[in-house]
């Protein structure tokens, strides 16, 4: 059945390629006002191809059936949100810039895309562990979410090199913490599902490259790749149950980010701000690890 998973993954890749190229085209003015662009062609081929493919897998009763059914159920949702988008445009007009990124039908469509892309991540190997393809698919789903947040991502909007007022500093700090949270969610999810060795590096690299493509900030993609390798080593040394990686990962990324800025351009934030961001990033890691580590034993009434 391996080739089934390969096709699912290929279609997920097609969706991401279409989305990333479309974002790049919008940033670089390589779009016109028509719907029929090469980028949309790739995106929608992946989208409709995925739904049709999951329909076929559901019909053939291929495992994991629940995941394939979920993929199939995205078909009507795409149609629904697509229609909602048309109605939205006719009611409220076409969105510009940030509005387009945040318009409700667009966000709903992006959520559907993220779910479709994440379907291969539900496969497990014979030991119940996450597979390579699954790990990559999970990272790609995070790419969809980060594309929505690109306007504040520290990898695309580098506020820490701007000498500006408190408002922009606050924006930069919050954006940094949001990005770190999404990245940590991916790593924690991989850790929980026993991702194969190298998955942290690959996931970090994928997130970094996907962000760098649109704005060309390759220095941060390289940083994420290095931090990914470091994350791999820390995780291996500390064991599965330890909370230490969740503290070390965000702290290392935050420190590395400010070091990269200092030595490649300008670090406009004072030590009270960048030092605070490092501490806050570590606190997020701690909070996330603590929040996720406990298990809940169901009471008799709650047991299903």
């Amino acid at each position, binding site marked *: 059945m391996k080739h089934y998973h390969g096709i699912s993954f290929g279609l997920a890749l097609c969706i991401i390629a279409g989305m990333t190229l479309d974002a790049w085209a919008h940033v670089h003015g390589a779009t016109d006002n028509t719907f029929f662009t090469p980028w949309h062609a790739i995106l929608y081929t992946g989208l409709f191809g995925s739904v049709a493919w999951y329909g076929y897998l559901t019909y053939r009763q291929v495992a994991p059936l629940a995941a394939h059914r979920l993929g199939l159920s995205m078909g009507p949702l795409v149609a629904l949100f697509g229609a909602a988008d048309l109605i939205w445009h006719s009611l409220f007009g076409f969105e510009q810039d940030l509005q387009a990124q945040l318009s409700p039908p667009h966000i709903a469509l992006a959520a559907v895309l993220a779910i479709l892309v994440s379907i291969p991540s539900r496969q497990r190997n014979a030991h119940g562990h996450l597979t390579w393809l699954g790990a990559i698919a999970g990272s790609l789903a995070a790419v969809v979410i980060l594309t929505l947040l690109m306007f504040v991502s520290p990898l695309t909007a580098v506020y820490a090199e701007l000498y500006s007022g408190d408002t922009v500093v*606050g924006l930069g700090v919050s954006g940094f913490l949001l990005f770190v949270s999404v990245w940590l969610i991916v790593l924690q999810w991989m850790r929980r599902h026993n991702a194969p060795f190298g998955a942290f590096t690959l996931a970090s690299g994928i997130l970094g490259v996907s962000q760098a493509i649109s704005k060309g900030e390759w220095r941060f993609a390289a940083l994420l790749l290095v931090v990914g390798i470091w994350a791999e080593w820390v995780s291996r040394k500390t064991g599965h149950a330890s909370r230490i990686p969740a503290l070390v990962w965000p702290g290392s990324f935050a420190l590395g980010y400010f070091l990269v800025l200092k030595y490649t351009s300008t670090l406009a934030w004072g030590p009270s701000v960048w030092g605070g961001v490092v501490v806050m990033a570590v606190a997020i890691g701690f909070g996330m690890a603590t929040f996720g580590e406990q298990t809940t034993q169901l009471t008799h009434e709650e047991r299903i």
Partner: protein
Amino acid sequence: MIAEKFQITQPRIGWIARLYHPQTMAWLLVPGSLWFLAGLYLDGWAHNHGKVDNTFFTPWHAVFYSGYLAASLTLALLVLITHLNGKIWQRDLPVSIRTAIIAAPLFALAGIGDLWWHTTFGFETGIEPLLSPPHLILAGSMFFVVVANARNDDPQQPAIQRIPVVLSTLAGLSVVTFMLQFNHPYGIIWPETVRSGDTGVMVGIVGLLVNVMLITGVALWMQRQRMPIGALTFVLVANALLVALMGDEYRFGWGALATGVLCELIAYALRAQPLALRLRVSAVLVPTTACLAYFGVIAATSVVIWPIHIWLGVSVLAGVAGWGLMIVAPRIHTDNE
């Protein structure tokens, strides 16, 4: 589990043995924690209302540091009670109280670190005090002191006995929201601010997202802990009013009330459903409702300048982000697993 740890092996005096009980300890911790928290918010209020000079000796600092002293003395008392009952605090007290016992002296150490920081890098200005590392370590240790009751809780207890853990949740959330004031949605109300430009819109969006995700995390934790009915609403409203103190934006208390009541009503309606499903519903419902209530309050009291693409889009995005939070939420185990 907690009850087993509290079985006394060597009681010496009757009243000391009676004090060594999870409920008694929980109630003992409440006054110090609330005093400490009140001091923090009073000081914040004074700073935001120009009621401070450049000296350390202000009434607000007096409340804050005496609160710290009260909370620390209570924790020291618990160590003593544990010892007098022939137990070892490092082993026999709930983990949250043990962490608080370590965090209390850390607070004092961070104070010394703060002096060094000021000497080395100068005094912070603007939003820097909320971000400076020693201040964050102070806030972090305060957080662990005020949430001492978080794991000293038994969901089987009647609602009245769970007041300490509810207050502990409020105190923990409020310490974090205090430090996030630099971009809190009740600070500068960006959706009603004219000519704020794209930067203002982005700041408003990110501030709102960060804060509703925080609230969602707390709501999921409370639901998983099977907190009594009304607890979530109380925590949301009390926290909103505390933050509102900083900028006199008390109107947002109504938004928090609407969010809490609606989410609790829906959770109550779904009470027969599996816990996993209820948590998923809450993960989407709480952030979306919190955003919509926020914009609803602004629309009712002034005007929402942001276009519908933005304000409704942020609300939907918050729901999607809440769903994402479930990825790292605790797993739910049945007996079969």
